């Protein structure tokens, strides 16, 4: 006799019928990352767009190389290269309209530059300066975020505010695979879904968070799958396929703008360079793995597509490279000038009005600078002067 039978008279009342609130099927990502280049889908692609993407990718690759070189010369304090990830950076930024906003993390300099920010200004923080360099309102680019995922709720809040004001602005928020483990990632996605905020979350899954591989970061089938639990669609895309990234991001942006709410996009890509110039990648991965990914290079994929379709020839390739060289030479020349920092400005932007305490401390530093200048003047035998 079972326990139930012993109880005899026990008749459980049936619970109220349970209905899922959202059909999860349409929210689920594809099993394979979406691809355009080298597939039939490429026939539909806008050839002008492909050409633009190509020119930008070549520039982006050169920018990464130049910035990395500048770290070796001590001109940049640090540079987290996005070599191998240029397609995500550039195609995603190009999917936005001018009125939209970008919320980048520290690795997303190329996306920032794609929005029109001056390449030198985009490097200000990484150079070792105290501020972020550019005016966020000029190109609608939030400051680069160093703490992981913390900029994601900002994107949600801004998009939400824009919608409340009746503006059809979309926010694109970028995060790495490691960043998806942070609480702010969860909170941002949840808020965005509940508020149906016009936000697109782009996870650049480049395989590693510094040294930690994806399988130690998450047990989820894919990062795009995480979307379903929040009630938003998840999309999986080949992050080295610029045309595919552009298409998927454009879809998501359109969906958000039309009031459809947020989308989570996972772009599968690879970080070919080390985490930053300060990292030794040989400690956690082998050359063979890197080689495999090098053969699936975003610049080459697009170059092959364009060449095979007769949209690009040797001259076109040379022209793109020359254009990138010009950009690099300009970047080099301007980064080689010593920036002029005013230490007293440190006190100017803590509050709208400095507190009495900050005024005192500014006076103290001013006096120290004056004393320094006097000593320097005495030592060089130059007439006394300097800042007071």
């Amino acid at each position, binding site marked *: 006799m079972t326990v139930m039978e012993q109880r005899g008279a026990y008749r459980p009342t049936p619970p109220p019928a349970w209905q899922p609130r959202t059909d999860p099927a349409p929210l689920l990502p594809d099993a394979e990352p979406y691809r355009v280049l080298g597939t039939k889908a490429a026939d539909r692609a806008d050839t002008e767009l492909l050409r633009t993407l190509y020119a930008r990718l070549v520039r982006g690759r050169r920018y990464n190389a130049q910035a990395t070189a500048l770290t070796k010369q001590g001109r940049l304090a640090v540079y987290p290269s996005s070599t191998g990830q240029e397609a995500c950076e550039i195609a995603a930024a190009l999917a936005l309209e001018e009125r939209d906003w970008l919320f980048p993390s520290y690795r997303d300099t190329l996306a920032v530059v794609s929005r029109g920010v001056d390449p030198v200004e985009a490097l200000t*923080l990484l150079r070792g300066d*105290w*501020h*972020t360099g550019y*005016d*966020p*309102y000029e190109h609608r680019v*939030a*400051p680069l*975020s*160093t*703490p992981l995922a*913390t*900029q*994601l*709720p*900002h*994107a*949600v*809040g*801004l*998009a*939400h*505010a*824009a919608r*409340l*004001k009746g503006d059809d602005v979309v*926010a694109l928020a970028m995060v790495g695979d490691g960043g998806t483990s942070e*609480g*702010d990632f*969860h*909170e*941002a996605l*949840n*808020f965005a879904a*509940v508020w149906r905020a016009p936000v697109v979350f782009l996870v650049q899954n480049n395989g590693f968070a510094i040294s930690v591989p994806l399988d130690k970061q998450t047990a989820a089938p894919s990062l795009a799958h995480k979307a379903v639990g929040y009630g938003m669609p998840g999309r999986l895309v080949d992050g080295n396929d610029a045309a595919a990234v552009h298409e998927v991001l454009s879809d998501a942006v359109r969906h958000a703008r039309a009031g459809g709410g947020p989308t989570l996009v996972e772009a599968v890509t690879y970080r070919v360079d080390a985490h930053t110039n300060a990292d030794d990648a040989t400690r956690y991965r082998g050359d063979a793995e890197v080689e495999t990914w090098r053969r699936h290079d975003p610049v080459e994929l697009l170059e092959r597509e364009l060449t095979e379709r007769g949209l690009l020839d040797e001259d076109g390739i040379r022209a793109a490279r020359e254009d990138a060289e010009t950009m690099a030479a300009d970047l080099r020349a301007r980064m080689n000038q010593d920036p002029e920092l005013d230490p007293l*400005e440190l006190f*100017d*932007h*803590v*509050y*709208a009005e400095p*507190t*009495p*305490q900050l005024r005192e401390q500014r006076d103290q530093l001013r006096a120290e600078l004056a004393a320094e200048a006097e000593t320097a003047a005495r030592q060089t035998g130059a007439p006394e002067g300097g800042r007071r």
Partner: protein
Amino acid sequence: MTTVAAKPATMAQALTRALRDAMAADPGVHVLGEDVGTLGGVFRVTDGLAAEFGEDRCTDTPLAEAGILGTAVGMAMYGLRPVVEMQFDAFAYPAFEQVVSHVTKMRNRTRGKMPLPLTIRVPYGGGIGGVEHHSDSSEAYYMATPGLHVVTPATVADAYGLLRASIASDDPVVFLEPKRLYWSKDAWNPEEPASVEPMGRAVVRRSGRSATLITYGPSLAVCMEAAEAARAEGWDLEVVDLRSLVPFDDETVCASVRRTGRAVVVHESGSFGGPGGEIAARVTERCFHHLEAPVLRVAGFDIPYPPPMLERHHLPGVDRILDAVGRLQWEAES
């Protein structure tokens, strides 16, 4: 303006009124937090705002403090003036990263281009018999974070005036609401609510000659009571209500200490690494030659906030203050 007779009002009512007036005056003011809408907040400070201004202006958010503050940052970036409610002091900690890494730095790291006008309301302190995590005094954490204003009212008039000033400020403000004063009443004229000192200024609540009690928020009433009691022992105590911890009003505090020559700092939060150490050091640095005795601190113990059944032993009360005042007869003893 018509003159309305001052009637008793609670601090919670004055706070509600401040939010309502700020929302009516500026469509950019948005209130968000846990349970702030239909319920009106667990302390009813946001009572009626959702009904009056709609759920887009007074929003029940998902239960996530970092998300609440993080999205408020984005809203402020887009030109709104969010006022967020953290339900209790100790539940604001998940949002602390947003405070430290973004809220306090956005103006600075954008060289003044992106100021964040947002107000973070935090009910704080004990004395209401709350269970654990419901009675923390978190002011030292906020004080130690440059880029924030930190204010805390001790009177009904200040609750209104300081909250309006916080919402109007172009900088982020942590607005600490002493929980145990929510239901305290003062005569308050809602028609002339602006007659308070601006943010950043301390106020002498009681003048005296023999020593200064320096305090704020929940401890003001205790200090006033102690000052009355001290008269019997021949002490004529001055009581300074700081009102603003950042910026700190050295001028008012030091002017008082120079007059009286003796000072005791009184607060509920722990002594070690607490606000009192900073205040005592500032006073000593500036008033050393006027001091007849070391600056003393009467504070909570350096223990996790005790359970309700024991909290009266922790909170600085009149006796502990009077005891410290007695110890100010330094010269005579040494």
